[in-house]
């Protein structure tokens, strides 16, 4: 049990607990806060995996943009969401059973793989070379086409979101 393992266990515990809170608390705002905590936990997991760039990106994108967007929409829609009524469906135990079974299955299948028990050692310095990542993303031998597709996807999402959410002044139907 090294220090890193202890840190990992604590962080994972907090993360999973927060995730459970996300899906179970009644107040939506609190759910968002728990979500933020989960995402932070995931970011720390990234750091333990020596992917600090993506840890930071995780915070920047998921917390800085996505959570805030969700927070906004929660506030906009809060008038109709009564926090007092139950937030889960009546037969919630059935999906819970299914999810637990799935978890068991996944772990079982993964355990069949010989690399499952590999211990991850520390990578040499500069393994998450951002410059290298940038080169790969825009080099013709690398991932230029997925990268461009992702750009187009972002643009399309931008335009689509504006188009969908725009408040059209529709004629008053009698």
């Amino acid at each position, binding site marked *: 049990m090294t220090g890193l393992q202890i840190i990992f266990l604590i962080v994972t515990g907090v993360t999973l607990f927060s995730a459970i809170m996300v899906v179970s608390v009644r107040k939506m*705002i609190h759910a968002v806060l728990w979500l933020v905590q989960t995402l932070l936990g995931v970011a720390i997991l990234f750091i333990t995996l020596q992917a600090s760039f993506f840890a930071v990106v995780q915070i920047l994108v998921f917390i800085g943009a996505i959570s805030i967007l969700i927070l906004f929409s929660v506030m906009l829609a809060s008038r109709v969401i009564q926090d007092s009524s139950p937030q889960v469906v009546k037969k919630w135990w059935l999906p819970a059973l299914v999810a637990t079974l799935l978890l068991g299955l996944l772990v079982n299948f993964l355990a069949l793989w010989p690399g499952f028990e590999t211990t991850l050692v520390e990578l040499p310095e500069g393994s998450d070379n951002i410059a290298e990542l940038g080169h790969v993303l825009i080099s013709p031998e690398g991932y230029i086409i997925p990268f461009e597709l992702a750009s187009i996807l972002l643009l399309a999402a931008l335009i689509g979101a504006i188009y969908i959410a725009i408040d059209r002044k529709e004629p008053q139907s009698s």
Partner: protein
Amino acid sequence: MGFWRDPITFIGAWLRDLLVNTGLSPMGAELIGIVLGAGLLATSAMLLVIFLIWVERKLIGRIQDRFGPNRVGPWGIFQPVADMLKIFTKEYITPIGADKLAYNIAPVLAVASVLMVWAVIPFSFTVVGADLSVGFLFILAVGALGEMGYILAGWGSNNKYALLGAFRTIAQLISYEVPMIISALIPIMFAGTLSVTGIVLAQDIWFIIIAPAAALVFFIASVARIGRAPFDLAEAESELVAGYNIEYSGLKFGMFFVAEFLQAFTMALIFATIFLGGWRGPGAEQFPILGFLYLLIKTSAVYFITILFRATLPRFRIDQMMALNWKILTPFSLSIVLVMALVGRLVASSPDVFRVAVFLAVNAVLLVAVDRLITLNKRKPPREVGSRNRPVAQAEVLPAQSDPGASE
């Protein structure tokens, strides 16, 4: 001699040796050192704010032809301390219907997000909290946590004004993040790294000389991001009472207050670091203590300019604020990045003097062009909202002034 050259490293080394000699494992000693250093840094930052508040009040007082604080201590220097003590003793009020979790966590987030920035700033050749390879991204990312704080404060207070203020703040912060990041791309591009230390080390020539246009955009955007005048419409007293923190009292309000000042100073610090060469200056490598001094001087200069901004410029309307961002700064910063990247490529291997001359010329052309464009496209004045004939208090119905001699 070593102490005077570089006191912090000296003390750190001494402390570590001491702890190890007492029987602690080296890792534990390191841990204690980190905790102590972080605590020290946060505390000194907080103390700095007290001083900053006094400086700002004094300066604005001078500009507005007043004395400013002048009662407590020499030149009123202990006035913020007195205020702080007063704030400590105030009662905490939690409004009915407030969301307790959000209401209480918001001020903490606000202060923490600012303090976290300090972790990656190199204060001298040897002193840096954490030399992250993605340091600059880290600065932006923790800014996102601050946004979280504001929106939670606005929501948790269960107050319409607070919520409106929070919305405005978030809209402003998210919007101005765009030109800020884009213009910050230029130092990153020239330095070739995201590490803040790397950016400082790359500044043999200050980046403000190479890219004054980008520095200008960055400065404007960062002033807007900290929500100071002329971008202080989130807490526009005449419109929103006090913005997102209207319902806060006591120490929680104090935390927001501190966060605001600290943020202003931190922005000056970031600007000084990435555009003004950070701690660099003559002899700063040999005598790292000089690095502190240089950084302090540069930061103070930038901070002084933000105070001048605040004291001299009137507040923007919200549509003007948005128009400035989306119609001018964002396209402008994009074009700066494009042009600078191209020009940088073209003159990459030229001698420094020539490079700087070319960059200055290009920046001048860009600035003039954008100025021309703004002037040419000056729109007709926006439609007036509301009627021109507003009810105005008539002189004859005003009560007679009872105390003409009352001072401020």
